[in-house]
């Protein structure tokens, strides 16, 4: 469900108000960029896709269903743009270079050494990482996450469970609370 506050700003932006859309950008940019920072290879690519996401949202605002969550809609656009960017050969080259750097610096497996959780998240598959980010970090429901990632809610639950297990293995056992 769309935030009532968002709904008013979206309606104003639909009427052509750039000031209203600017407010929406300021409201959601940090969350969106944080999400993209963890999904993309580097911050330049993340900010590039975040800008493209807002430009696309501006162009397609008339098609947005006001009963939906505007923030979830933005995350969905960003996720699709990320997937499209993976097909770009230049971005793929940069990603592969970054992956090689990670492979050259493997996770330390010494028992008792607490691994950085942020680095552990980076080692999950893109789908698992996205499911952790939207469900466990950004606070979306499984249904919203399913819409964002364009998969079923059941698939999201499975991805979250698998990501949880991998994270627990990478950073050491935790007294986990279930999602």
């Amino acid at each position, binding site marked *: 469900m769309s935030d009532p506050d968002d709904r008013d700003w979206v309606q104003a932006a639909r009427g052509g108000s*750039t000031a209203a859309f600017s407010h929406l950008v300021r409201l959601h940019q940090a969350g969106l960029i944080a999400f993209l*920072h963890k999904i993309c290879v580097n911050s330049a690519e993340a900010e590039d896709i975040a*800008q493209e996401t807002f*430009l696309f949202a501006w162009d397609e605002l008339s098609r947005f269903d006001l009963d939906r969550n505007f923030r979830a809609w933005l995350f969905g656009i960003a996720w699709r743009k990320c997937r499209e960017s993976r097909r770009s050969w230049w971005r793929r080259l940069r990603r592969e270079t970054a992956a090689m750097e990670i492979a050259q610096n493997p996770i330390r497996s010494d028992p008792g050494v607490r691994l950085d959780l942020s680095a552990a998240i980076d080692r999950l598959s893109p789908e698992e990482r996205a499911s952790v980010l939207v469900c466990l970090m950004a606070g979306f429901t499984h249904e919203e996450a399913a819409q964002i990632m364009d998969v079923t809610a059941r698939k999201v639950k499975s991805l979250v469970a698998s990501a949880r297990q991998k994270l627990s293995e990478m950073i050491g056992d935790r007294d986990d609370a279930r999602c």
Partner: protein
Amino acid sequence: MTLDAELAAVWNEEIARAHNPAFSIAVMRRIERSLYRRALVLSIAIVAVATLLFIIVAPLLTSIWRQSFARSLNALTLVFLLSALSVFLSKCLRPLF
């Protein structure tokens, strides 16, 4: 500290790191540029269509003008009418772009 609490802490760090006041300015600049480009294309299209129409109907208008209105209206009135028509057309066509 539970995994969920640690994930929340990482998310808060990422949010703080992602805060960039210049970002919204950059986005709005791109949107304004895009709006300007569209308005420019719309204006050029309207002028082109109006010119073409005028070329097509000019002989007819000239004959009508000579036969009926030439005595009662002057050239300035005609310019005013054509300008009003252009403004009216641009207002009507704007929502389409």
